[in-house]
C-alpha cells in the first residue's frame, strides 16, 4: 500500500502551566482529524496526530520534536506549544523544508513570512488582537482613556509597543502602562495606580486568570468605573466560572466561536454531537489549526505537488474566503501568517457564558 498516513506532529503541553490549553487543543485536533478521516482523509490518505507532552518547557518541546521527526517519516504538519519553541525550532523547519507549523503561540513575532516562512497562526496575533480591541473601543467610546496591564514576560510584553502606536492612530489615550512581575499575586499597589489613572478601559495581557479577579474585585470595591478586557487565553468561560459575580462584564477578543454559540454553524453542531460537554477555547484553536493545516496539505496534493514546507505554505496562502463551518463567523483568508479576525465577547456571570457584543471585526482591508 503506497497510501501512507500523513502525520501531524505535536509538542503539546498536557501538563505544566499551560496544560488546560494543551488538553483542549489535543482534543480539538483529534476531533477534526476524525471528521476528516471519516470523509476519506486527504487524497485517500489518513491523517494522524503523533504528539507528546512537553510540560510547556522549550527543551522538552524540542526533544519531542526530534523524537517525533526521527520516528515518523511522513510528518508534514506540526503543532508547537510556545513562542520560544516556535522561535527555537524555526531554523530547523527551514532547514528541513518538510513541514509547516502552527501552534499555541499568537506571538506577533511569528507574523513575519520572511523570517518565519513555514509557520502560521490560526487566528490574529497578539498585536492584532489588541488592534481589534482598540477598534471596538474607538467605536464605542471615541477618545477613551486606556490603561494596559501586562505581565513582565515575553508573552505579556508582546503587544505593548504596537498597541501604543495603534491607540494613537485611533485617537485613544493610554494613560498608564502597568507591568506586573510574573507570578505576582498581590496587586494592591497596581490597583491604586489604576484608581489614580481613572481609565475607561483596562486591557490585560500576558495572564490567563490570576491576578485578574483580584484586580477586578479591588477595583469594584474602590468604585472604579472601568471596563476590563483581555485577550484570547483569558477568554475561556470555564476559567471564569469559579470567580463568581466579580467576573461579570469582563470582555475580550475571541477569534473563534464558543462551543455554546447559537448562531448557525454546522461544524459547531458536529462538535456538540461528538462532545456533549463544553469544550474550551483551546479546543476551537486546535480544531481550526488542524483544519487549516490539512487544507493546505490537501491543496498541495491536489495540485500534484510534493509535501514540502514551501509547497504547503504556498497552498496555505491560497486559502481565500474559506468557510470554516462556522468556527469563525465570517469566511477567512490566510494571505500571510495570520488570520486577523476576531470578535468582542462579554462574560455573563449569571449564565456563566461569554456573549458576543460586537460583529466580527476583520483587520483585512
Amino acid at each position, binding site marked *: 500500500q503506497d497510501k501512507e498516513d500523513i502525520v501531524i506532529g505535536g509538542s503539546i503541553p498536557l501538563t505544566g502551566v*499551560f*496544560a488546560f490549553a494543551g488538553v483542549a487543543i489535543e482534543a480539538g485536533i483529534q476531533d477534526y482529524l476524525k471528521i476528516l478521516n471519516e470523509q476519506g482523509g486527504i487524497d485517500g490518505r489518513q491523517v494522524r496526530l503523533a504528539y507528546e507532552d512537553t510540560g510547556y518547557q522549550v527543551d522538552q518541546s524540542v526533544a519531542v520534536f526530534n523524537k517525533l521527526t526521527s520516528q515518523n517519516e511522513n510528518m508534514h504538519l506540526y503543532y508547537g506549544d510556545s513562542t520560544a519553541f516556535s522561535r527555537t525550532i524555526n531554523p530547523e523547519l527551514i532547514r528541513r523544508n518538510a513541514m509547516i507549523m502552527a501552534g499555541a503561540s499568537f506571538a506577533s513575532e511569528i507574523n513575519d513570512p520572511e523570517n518565519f516562512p513555514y509557520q502560521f497562526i490560526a487566528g490574529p496575533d497578539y498585536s492584532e488582537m489588541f488592534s481589534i480591541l482598540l477598534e471596538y473601543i474607538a467605536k464605542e467610546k471615541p477618545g477613551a482613556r486606556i490603561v494596559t496591564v501586562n505581565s513582565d514576560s515575553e508573552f505579556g510584553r508582546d503587544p505593548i509597543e504596537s498597541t501604543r502606536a495603534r491607540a494613537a492612530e485611533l485617537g485613544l489615550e493610554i494613560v498608564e502602562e502597568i*507591568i506586573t512581575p510574573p507570578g505576582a499575586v498581590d496587586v494592591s499597589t497596581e490597583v491604586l495606580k489604576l484608581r489614580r489613572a481613572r481609565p475607561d478601559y483596562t486591557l490585560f495581557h500576558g495572564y*490567563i486568570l490570576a491576578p485578574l479577579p483580584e484586580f477586578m474585585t479591588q477595583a469594584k470595591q474602590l468604585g472604579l468605573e472601568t471596563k476590563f478586557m483581555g485577550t484570547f487565553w483569558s477568554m475561556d468561560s470555564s476559567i471564569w466560572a469559579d470567580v463568581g459575580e466579580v467576573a461579570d462584564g469582563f470582555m475580550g477578543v475571541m477569534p473563534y466561536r464558543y462551543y455554546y454559540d447559537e448562531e448557525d454553524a454546522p461544524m459547531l453542531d458536529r462538535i456538540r454531537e461528538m462532545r456533549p460537554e463544553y469544550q474550551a477555547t483551546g479546543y476551537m484553536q486546535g480544531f481550526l489549526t488542524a483544519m487549516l493545516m490539512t487544507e493546505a496539505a490537501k491543496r498541495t496534493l491536489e495540485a500534484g505537488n510534493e509535501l514540502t514546507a514551501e509547497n504547503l505554505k504556498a497552498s496555505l496562502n491560497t486559502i481565500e474566503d474559506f468557510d470554516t463551518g462556522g468556527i469563525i463567523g465570517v469566511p477567512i483568508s490566510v494571505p500571510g501568517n495570520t488570520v486577523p479576525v476576531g470578535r468582542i465577547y462579554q462574560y455573563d456571570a449569571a449564565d456563566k457564558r461569554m456573549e458576543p457584543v460586537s460583529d466580527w471585526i476583520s483587520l483585512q482591508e
Partner: protein
Amino acid sequence: MSDLLFFIEVSLAGLGSGALLSLTALAFVLIYKATRVINLAVGETLMMGGYFFFALAAGMSLPVWVAIPLAIAGGGLIGAIVERGIIRRMLGESPISVFMVTVGLGSVLVGLVEFIWGTDPRSLPDFMGSAPIFLGEVYVSRKIAISFVVAAVVIAIFLVLFRYWRGGVALRATATDQAAAYSCGINVPGVFSLAWIIGCGTAAGAGMLLGQIGGIAPTMGAFGLSALVVVIVGGLDSVAGALIAGLFIGLVEAWTGTYLGGEYKLVFTFGILILMLMIRPYGLFGTTEIERL
C-alpha cells in the same frame, strides 16, 4: 487625588504585603533557628497550605473555620513527615546537603500538586469578605489588612515565646551542636520535629492568606524567594528581623512597583539582598558565626 494620599495608600499596601512576607520569613527562621537548615521548600509548603485549604473548604465543603486549622495542621504534617523521613536521617550532614534536599523537596511538592490538582490556577473560597476598609480617606484592601493583623499577631506570639520560654534556648542549643544538646538532656529529635511542624504550619497558614488574595497555583511557591530576601536582610535566626525586614521589603517592593514599574521589583529586592550580604553578611539582627583558628 493628592500625591501624598496616593503615597500613603501605596505604603500601606506595601506594609500589608510585607506582613505576609514576614510571616513566610518566620517559617524560614523557625526552622533555621533549631536545625540550621535553610528550608527552600517553604514556598512550596505555603502552596500546599493553600491547596489543603482548597481541598477541605471547596472540595469537601467543610466550613471555613474547620478548614483553616486543618490546613495548618496539614502543613505541620508535611513538616513532621519531612523531618522524620528525611531531615533526621541527615543529622550531621553538611548544611548544604540539607539545603539541597529541601530544593528537591520543593520539586516533589510541586509535582504532587500537579499530580493531584493539576496545573490550573484556582481561587479559594472567600473567608475574609471584601468590603474595603477606609482609614479616613485612605483605602486599604480588606484582605491585605486582615493578613497584616494575622501576621503581626503570630509574630508577636513568637517574639514573646522566645523571650520568656526556655525552649528557645533548647532550639538554639540544638542548632549549635546536636550531640552536645543531647548530652544536656535536650530532646533533639523532639526539637527538630517541633521546629519543622511549627515552621511548616506557619508557612501553610501564610499560604492560605496568600491564596485568599491571589488564588492558588503550583507556581505560587515563588513567593518563598522574596521571603528568602527578607530572612537574609533580617538575619536568618531572628524573629524580629523577619518582622522588620519583611515590612521593609514590602515597602520597597510597593514603592519600586509604583514609581518605577513592576518589572523593577525583583531586581531591587535582590539588589538589596546582595548589598546586605556585602555590608552585613548576617543581616540586621542575625548572629554572626564564630570563626577561630
